[in-house]
């Protein structure tokens, strides 16, 4: 017993070091992507809050532009209202009219962004109050950005293409073959399209689009173009895709709201 105590005393620092490292490594191994998303949600709310305060000060100086935008938006909304009422006049039921809009875009600004990590995330300044919910698609003017992971009242986190947990079905424009788009964690400019069978003819520069095989994105949103391809794994190509979206210079994005997402998911779950 005494020797044990002396041993512990003598090596107390080494033991403490080992204990702390074991805790850290346990955290790394335990840290599933679900826990990570919860943690990210929490800390993004904190940092998101701070960033929005900083941006708030900047916004004060751009009130004039904001005003102009509001005027434009007002005009557009009034136009739409006219259109809607004229459609009602022509005996269209309001419910059906709403059904006509299958996708709706929520304009949003990025308040926090990372591109240099293995698991990158973006934070947007729109949340549940503005109609942004989990599993909605996010696009920019340039093309595909990512998918909403979590949303709070006024913020939401996006899991972008450049995150190693990201998976999406995408297709080649010229021949409609669909594969899995993911990121291998190297450059934020390139992603990998896999599971395209070897007999498909490919050429560099072909455009890659979203396939529409999910309720998240409509078909045909531009993702990138083929930079190079190889057949290393035998039956399937490894295609390197140059992304159209430049994540390092991204400020404004649109969140896609699919009015029929719930219906589709409900049906798909029934059959499982």
């Amino acid at each position, binding site marked *: 017993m005494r020797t044990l105590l002396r041993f512990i005393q003598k090596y*107390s620092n080494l033991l*403490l070091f080992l204990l702390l490292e074991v805790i*850290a490594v346990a*955290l*790394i191994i335990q840290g599933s992507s679900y826990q990570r998303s919860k943690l990210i949600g929490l800390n993004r709310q904190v940092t998101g809050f701070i960033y929005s305060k900083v941006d708030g000060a900047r916004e004060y100086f751009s009130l004039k532009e904001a005003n102009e935008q509001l005027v434009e938006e007002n005009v557009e909304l009034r136009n739409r209202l006219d259109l809607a009422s004229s459609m009602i006049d022509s005996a269209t039921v309001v419910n059906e009219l709403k059904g006509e809009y299958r996708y709706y875009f929520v304009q949003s600004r990025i308040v926090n962004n990372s591109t240099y990590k*293995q698991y990158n995330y973006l934070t947007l300044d729109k949340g549940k109050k503005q109609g942004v919910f989990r599993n909605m698609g996010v696009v920019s003017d340039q093309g595909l950005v990512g998918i909403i992971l979590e949303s709070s009242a006024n913020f939401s986190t996006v899991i972008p293409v450049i995150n190693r947990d990201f998976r999406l079905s995408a297709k080649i424009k010229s021949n409609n073959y669909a594969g899995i788009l993911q990121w291998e*964690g190297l450059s934020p400019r390139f992603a990998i399209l896999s599971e395209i069978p070897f007999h498909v003819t490919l050429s560099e520069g072909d455009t890659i689009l979203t396939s529409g095989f999910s309720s998240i994105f409509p078909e045909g949103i531009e993702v990138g173009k083929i930079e190079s391809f190889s057949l290393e794994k035998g039956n399937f190509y490894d295609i390197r895709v140059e992304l159209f979206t430049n994540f390092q210079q991204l400020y404004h994005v649109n969140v896609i709201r699919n009015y029929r997402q719930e219906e589709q998911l409900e049906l798909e779950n029934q059959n499982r």
Partner: protein
Amino acid sequence: MYIVARNIFRFLVLILFQVLVMDNVMISGYMIPYVYILFILLMPFETPRWILLLSGFALGLSIDLFNGTPGMHTAASVLIAFVRPYLLDLLASRDGYDPETYPRIHYYGFLWFLKYTLIIVFIHHLALFYLEVFQLKVFFSTLLRVILSTIISASTIVLSQYFVFRK
């Protein structure tokens, strides 16, 4: 007591600075200067090892919480907290370190501080980046990132000694 308060203040400021400013400074896309380990570098010579280790743990855990990474910064920070006393012994001149001094350029000169910073930062980045990718497939590209990031972090830290932590 004054020293303790000063270190706690430095701890908080460095974490906020890292998360709010440095994490947004990206050099050529995927390298960022990790200056928060400056806290471990600057702790007084006579700090007991268990305090060093626990501070390293708290420091890494805070950065992990803000970054949403599980345990990687914690593991790397605890590692450098453990290595630091041995490295200080190794780098000590024949007279050792004078009491009433701190591990800084002001007391021990540019070359000493550069060596000290480079080694600690390199160990930290090596652990951090390999834990982050967690695969050996990209061994050399990760090693390149470690080396480039070490240069960037270390130069930021050394520069900070001239502008912020002058004395």
